[in-house]
């Protein structure tokens, strides 16, 4: 090596040295971060910072703990809830986007497994005449039905929501008062949450390019109203309320019934409590 090249080479070595040092620091920071992450991952999706008053000055989300009940023995499958939800929340009026839906379970004589359908089934769409109208066709009128019931479905607003866990940007979160929401202005539209929900409760809004789901009508419940689906149910099959209030309809429903949740093995700890469903309910 001659003298003329040495300074250049030294400068390069110094620069690369600094680069290495910077990489080292980054690694150390990432390592420390990883420790925190391990804790967070193990804790699954927890509630965000405990702000006192949210979203309005006269609503304190730390004072409520919302929950939902479904009494399947009462549901008549009229689907007013589905229609009310679509109108209230501007959900696409087709057979592929639902924040809430109703399933029908029919056991025919001589069959051990139920026949399951919902209003997105082609036969039911044909009966209503349109994807935007929701109806259960009377398809079993000539069959011998042993047992049949309806099961309303919606987001379970889980205590450990898998959808919140997988969101790469934190656009979806669980509120202090126990509702899982999506920030549509922050969602990147990757649909990882749609995959992660074991209940099929998440949908993708193609027009807005973001994920969507039931919010228990957060804009209504924070103003003292009931969710739209609960409001319109003619038979009281949908029950909503504050678990912190021991005399609320939901507290009474959970206390006075032997309730169960869907897919408890998922570890998500759902907060929609069911009465009157059987083992075949998916």
């Amino acid at each position: 090596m001659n003298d003329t090249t040495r300074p250049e080479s030294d400068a390069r070595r110094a620069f690369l040295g600094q680069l290495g040092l910077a990489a080292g620091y980054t690694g150390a920071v990432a390592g420390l971060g990883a420790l925190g992450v391990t804790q967070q991952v193990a804790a699954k999706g927890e509630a965000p910072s405990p702000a006192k008053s949210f979203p309005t000055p006269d609503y304190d989300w730390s004072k409520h703990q919302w929950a939902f009940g479904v009494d399947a023995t009462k549901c008549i499958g009229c689907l007013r809830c589905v229609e009310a939800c679509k109108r209230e929340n501007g959900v696409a009026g087709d057979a592929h986007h639902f924040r809430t839906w109703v399933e029908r379970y029919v056991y025919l004589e001589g069959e051990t497994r139920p026949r399951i359908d919902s209003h997105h089934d082609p036969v039911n769409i044909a009966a209503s005449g349109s994807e935007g109208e929701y109806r259960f066709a009377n398809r079993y009128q000539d069959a011998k039905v042993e047992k049949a019931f309806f099961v309303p479905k919606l987001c379970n607003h889980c205590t450990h929501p898998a959808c919140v866990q997988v969101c790469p940007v934190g656009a979806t979160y669980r509120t202090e008062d126990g509702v899982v929401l999506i920030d549509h202005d922050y969602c990147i539209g990757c649909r990882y949450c749609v995959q992660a929900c074991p209940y099929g409760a998440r949908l993708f809004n193609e027009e807005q390019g973001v994920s969507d789901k039931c919010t228990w009508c957060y804009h209504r419940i924070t103003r003292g109203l009931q969710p739209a689906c609960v409001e319109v149910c003619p038979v009281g099959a949908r029950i909503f309320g504050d678990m912190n209030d021991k005399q609320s309809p939901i507290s009474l429903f959970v206390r006075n019934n032997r309730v169960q949740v869907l897919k408890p093995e998922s570890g998500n700890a759902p907060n929609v409590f069911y009465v009157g469903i059987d083992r075949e309910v998916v």
Partner: protein
Amino acid sequence: METLVHAAPFTGYVYPNETIIPWTVLIVVYPYLTGLVAGAFTVSSMYQVFGIQRFKPVAHLALLTSLCCMLIVPMPLLLHLGHAERALNSMITPHWTSAFAVFGYAAGFYVILLMLETWFVYRPYIVQQAQRGKGPLRWFYQALSLGSHDLSENAMNYDRKWTFTLAVIGIPAAHGLHGYIGFVFGSLKAREWWSSDLMPLVFLFSAIISGTALLIVIYVLSCRLRRVPVDLPCLKGMAYALWGFMMFTLLLEGVEFASLVYRAREGIEIIMEYVRGPLLMTFFVLQFGVGSLVPLTVLSYLIWRGTTGRTLIVGVTASAALVLFAVLMMRWNVVIGGQEIAKTGKGLVNYLPTIGGREGLLAAASLVAMPFVLLWAAVRLFPPWQNAQVPSPVGPSP
């Protein structure tokens, strides 16, 4: 509205929101490209790190292939996002509980690593062109040389040290990146078809075979185009590697499938219905039969008979092409297969890809072709061939 184009026909009972497949063919391309990156890097490391001399003719080509594929890897994701302009949110405000939050950092780190390694490997060539080249290309190389024209023995030793270090770091980085994509799928408990601890390993080994197969095809093709003889020991080396890693891949895939069937958890009936029905063609015939058993048999025969010459070249290249196809089918069967089996465990969805559109087959095919367009340009700017005039600076320092 695009919605109804995506709405898939279904049988049995599926949740209403499931009738639109969330992850389309673009998400098939994404792990396919990442796998090629990791596999090509493995081939390059055989020489750069492990010093296996017979891989020398393809070492630089492998590095360039890896880089070109990696540059395209984020594209299918960006094209898929509902809001691509918010993509950087995952790096600005990463939500660390998400398996996907780390992707931006991991991919960014790996692209920088690949660029640095390529720069060190090609520095002698860049300097030479910066000094002797003509016209605008000379300015290009001058800019790339970063003002350092030092090719002394000392400087070359220094470069060798860096190349070696980067190649060593690159091995866990490349394989980590791809194994982690396997984890993204394998950790999703909502889907029985994906939820497997073996998924990261299956992804990893299939990545290695796809990268090796790709190198075989590109190398033989490039030799034909340049009218130079194929380096047979090199080709044979890659054939051995392909054969060996294929054994592992097939074994892992077999074990994964067997344990799924043997565990027979809830929903297994619908999985079996799926496997016997729609999956029969893509999984058993195309992925396992045509794509895996045929090339494995051909390769075994060639190795057993000690075949050489033109027969070896044709046999190995054809096998490699089949393996490339098999891995693509494997990605399809995992990504699309997982979504065709409904979360209800009572029904099947039938994904019908569109031809055009943002998430159609044409877009996917273009994305698969893009790295090779890049590579076509890259080999002109940075010839990876052994007879390039500059002595190769690669390999661990003695």
